[in-house]
Structures are given as C-alpha cells and as structure tokens.
C-alpha cells in the first residue's frame, strides 16, 4: 500500500519535472532570442523562409497559444527539420540515438564492472596502498577534461600501441565484407543476433576506447562511492557481529557490507548516466562516433538549431526516466524502503 503511494507520487514528481523542462525550453527558444524564427530557420534561410517559419510557429500570436502549439508539436513527435541533414530531426534521432545509447550503456557497464569491485577492494583495506591509489586515480578521473582523455586514449591505444581502432563504429573493410543487418541499431546486439561474429568482434574493438573514455568519470564516482559506503557499512554493528561469529573476512565484505552499499551505488550509477550522455558529445566528436553527440556537435558548427534543442530535450527526458527507474528499482530491491523512498 505504502509502496503504491510512493510509486504514484514519484511518477507525478517526474511528470512535473518534465512539464518544467518543456516550459523552460520554450522560454529559452521563444522568449529569450530576439528572433526565434531566424533561430529555427537557420542563418542560411532566406527572408521568405524565415517568414514562413514565423507563421508556422505562430510568433504573432500570444505566448500562451504558442506554448500550446509547441507542446502539440512535441506530442506528435515533431522536433523540426535539421538544416544540415535536410531530414526531420525525429528521423535523425532514430538514426543516431542507438549509437549513443550503445556507447553510454557500454561505458556505464565498464564503470560498474570496474568501479564496484575496485571500490570494495579499496574499502576492505581502508587507507591501504590500493585504497590510496584508486583514490588518487578517481580524483584524477573526475578532474580530467573528457576531450583530453579521449585524445590521450587515441594517442596511447592507437598511435603508440596499435591495439585498438581509431574511430567509427566499424571498420569499412569489415562492414563491406560482412554487412550488418540493422535490427535494433545496437551493433553489438545486431551482429550477435545475426551470428555475424566478425563484425561483432570489430564492433567490440571499436567501442572499447570511446566507452572507456565515457566510463572514466562515472567510474571515478562509482569507485569512491562504493568504497565509502562499503567502508561505512563495515563499521556497522552487524558486520562486527558477523566477524565475531567467525565468518571469513571476504564473505563478510561481500555478503553484508556490499549489500547495504549497493543501493546508494545504484543511485549514483543512475545519476552518472546523465553525465555520461553529456560526456559523449565530446567523445563522439573525437571518435567520429555517429551518435547524437556528434549530431549536436555538427549542428553547432552548422548553426543548425533544431537538433540542438531536440537532443537536449531527449537527453533530459532520458535522464528523468533513468532516475525514476533507479528510484523504483530501489524500492523494489530494498524491502526496508519507507513510503518516502528513504532507506532506513
């Protein structure tokens, strides 16, 4: 009962945020600029085209009417037309979004796969060598500009070691000899589903480096978070009791400490997801990764406004959805969660 109430309130809160996001973007795009039509039509547009857009947007009508119109368009999935690609932004997003999601998900997977075990290890020997080393690495990882990391990663793994490919999602030879059938748009998944293992291996090789760079920031956060919560949990009475009962040290850490540490880590993972999306803009630019980040970067250069707005909206909605999902997952995973979502 309590949980149902929480669920509803949590969803309502998310909807309020979405409504606010829509209002804010409306203000930014329609009220702030001196000529919203010129912004949408692009600098390349002729006065006639601008006039047409002005009419389409209904800029001569009251703001309230414009707002309703704006929401109506969004509700129909109308995100405008990209001046650069000449396609509707919705079509473009359909093309570019899967690549970004694949990259971000792989990055998050790396962050969790490396961050959680490393964090636990660090906590197991608090202030030990490993703890200090990972602490330093984490603070470095959080302070390094992502584009510098990307350039550095290319320099090391491509130019020096020749281990990993430079950029793109697939080698052109491979995609030529082993064409990929698009099903989900996730190359790793599509190639696996069709049994195209040559392309799968190539796709994996291509995604490792950008995913690693995307992962660095979340990894730093997850590592320190896991380390801190685990260390704190280890000091809790029930752990001490477990120790007293003679349980082996490793078992204690894993079963008890990690258990209470997992929930905050999960929360953090969800939150860093949004930052990973932000980071991908620069990473995709450098790795020539055909996702929404590169789409935005190209749009900035081309002064192509509709994609910038659309990607901002979509990323924000994804972020709100992910935080909502994480919260709901917490409630589902932790029976001790109270009605207000707070863990006792």
């Amino acid at each position: 009962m309590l949980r149902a109430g929480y669920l509803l309130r949590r969803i309502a809160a998310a909807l309020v945020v979405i409504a606010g996001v829509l209002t804010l973007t409306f203000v930014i795009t329609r009220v702030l600029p001196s000529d919203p039509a010129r912004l949408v039509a692009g600098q390349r547009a002729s006065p006639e085209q601008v006039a047409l857009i002005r009419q389409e947007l209904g800029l001569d009508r009251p703001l309230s009417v414009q707002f309703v119109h704006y929401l109506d368009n969004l509700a129909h999935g109308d995100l405008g037309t990209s001046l650069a690609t000449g396609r509707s932004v919705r079509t473009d997003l359909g093309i570019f979004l899967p690549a970004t999601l694949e990259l971000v998900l792989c990055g998050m997977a790396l962050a969790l796969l490396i961050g959680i075990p490393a964090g636990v290890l660090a906590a197991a020997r608090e202030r030990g060598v490993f703890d200090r080393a990972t602490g330093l690495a984490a603070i470095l990882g959080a302070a390094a500009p992502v584009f510098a990391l990307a350039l550095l990663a290319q320099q090391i793994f491509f130019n020096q070691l020749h281990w990993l490919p430079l950029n793109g999602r697939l080698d052109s030879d491979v995609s030529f000899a082993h064409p990929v059938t698009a099903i989900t748009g996730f190359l790793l998944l599509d190639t696996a589903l069709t049994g195209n293992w040559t392309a799968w291996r190539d796709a994996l090789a291509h995604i490792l480096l950008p995913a690693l760079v995307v992962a660095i920031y979340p990894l730093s956060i997850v590592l320190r978070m896991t380390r801190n919560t685990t260390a704190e949990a280890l000091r809790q009475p029930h752990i001490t009791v477990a120790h007293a009962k003679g349980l082996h040290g490793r078992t204690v850490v894993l079963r008890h400490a990690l258990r209470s540490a997992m929930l905050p880590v999960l929360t953090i993972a969800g939150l860093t997801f949004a930052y990973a999306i932000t980071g991908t803009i620069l990473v995709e630019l450098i790795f020539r990764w055909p996702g929404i980040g590169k789409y935005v970067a190209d749009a900035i250069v081309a002064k192509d406004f509709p994609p910038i707005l659309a990607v901002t909206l979509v990323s924000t909605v994804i972020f709100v959805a992910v935080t909502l999902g994480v919260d709901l997952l917490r409630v589902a995973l932790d029976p001790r969660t109270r009605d207000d979502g707070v863990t006792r």
Partner: protein
Amino acid sequence: MDVLRRSGAVGDAGTAAGDARRVTGAATGRGRTRRWRRVAGRPALWLSGLFLAAVVAGALLAPWVTPYADEGAGAPNIAHKLLAPSWEHPLGADEMGRDMLARVLYGARSSLALALLVVSSSVVVGVIVGLAAGYAGGWADEAAMRTTDVFLAFPNLLLAILLVTVLGGGFVSTVLALALVWWPIYALLVRGQVVSLRSQPFIEAARATGVTPLGIMRRHLLPNALTPLLVYATIDLGAVILVAAGLSFIGLGPQPPAADWGVMIYSGRQYVLGGSWWVAGVPGLAIMLTALAFAVLGDTLRDAGDPRQRG
C-alpha cells in the same frame, strides 16, 4: 566529485534518497580548528594550494611576468612558428609563433575570471533563493525546489550549449549560460541547511526575541551554510573551467587572438602528431591541473569540515 554532491542535492528534492548526502557529509562547524590541524599536513593540499597560487599570480601579473606579453595577447610571430621548448620559450611556441607560457597565462586570466564570475553569481542567486525558500517553506519552497529539479534534470553541458546558441557566443553570454546552469545546486544546498536548522531551539529563541527574518538569516542561517558553500564553490571553480573548455572545444568559445585553453587544445591538436605536442599538451595540462587542484582543495575543505571523518 561533482555528482556525489548533486546526487545529495537531488535526494533532497525527493527523488533519490539522502544516502549520498550521508556519505559526502555536510559540515556543522564544531571542532573546526582541530580538524583543520588534521588536514593541514597533507602534501596534496600544499601542492594544490601552491599551484593555484602560482596560476592566479601568473594570471594577474601576466603582462609583467612574461617578456612576451604582446604574444600572450595574440600578436603572431611567425618566425618562431612551432619552436620546441627552450630557455627562451620554456613551454615552446604555438602555430603562430607565440610563446606558449605567455599564451597559457593569458588563457588562465579568462578561465579563472569566467569560473569566478559563474560560481560567485551562482552562489549569490542560490543563497538568495535557498534562504528564501527554506525560511518561507510552504508553496514558495515547493515551487523553488521544483524549479531547481527542472534545471538539474538537464545535462549541464547541453543546457549550456542551448543557452550559448540562443544568447550568442562571447564571454558575457557564456558566463550567463553557465550561471543559469549552476545556481540550482547552491539553492538546494542552502535550502537544505536552512530546513534542518529552522526548527532548532536557538532559531526559535531568536525569533521569539523579535529578531527579523532577515536578521535570522544573516546571523544564524547563513553562517551555518558557509562551510559547505565554500567546499562546493571551490570544487565548482574547477568544474566550470572544465565545462567552459568543453564549450570552447566544440566551437562555442572566444575567437582568436584571445587566449583560451579549450580553443588552444582544439587548434593545437593538429600539430601533435607531427611532433609539436606542447601546442595542445600545455593547455590540456593546465586545465587538468587547475581543475584537479580545485578538487583537492575542495575535498580538503570538506574533510576539515566533516566531524565524522576519523583522523
């Protein structure tokens, strides 16, 4: 360590719970001296402090400390194109033959000025909104908190990109855009402090003795929020430099000949493979070390203010 704090902030707004806040821990302010003594011996703190002092001094005095002030400001000297580091040019020369040390110092001027302006204006707005919301409570509080939720739902670089695109490039609009992205954090932080203190006996007492709301805020509420504000503001100076560099890197930075770290990396990276690593490497290192130093400083401040930390 940006997200750690943000997660705590969002937690307050009723989304993710306050676990993260428990870990990051806001300071209260007792036993401050003892805790300062505890952190004062850390070499990382001294290194960071010295580095930042050097950067700030170098930036402030740039026209006088470098013999290549005009090159720092942008004058090309094509005869020195891509000179490797030497005694005359300790950090080499860039593609226009300008002394890299002078360029980096002039770049520090704009980076630091931008970060300082963004953070200070965010703090001011955040403190006002946070104090008002936390003290007033009720629907005003609710409205303020929902507004911050909305801002925090945007990935910060994307919101900044959107705003800079709309406002047009340039220093002032970049400051405006980043401040708009940043203020909600401080509003949440201050508001959280205020709410936790609002019903404390000493506040009740002050109110009973007829101290005005403004007086209570100034004398009791604000001072208590000061340590965490300082911690976050310090870390944010580095974070703002990073995001601003990102904006420059994708082409939303200032135009030449002005020195800007993000632009310098972008335009300099085409010379790296040919061997002139310093053109992009030096500003890259400058950004990284500066952000790192601010992070270490902020972390130390936090530890100093955190009574739960064991020494």
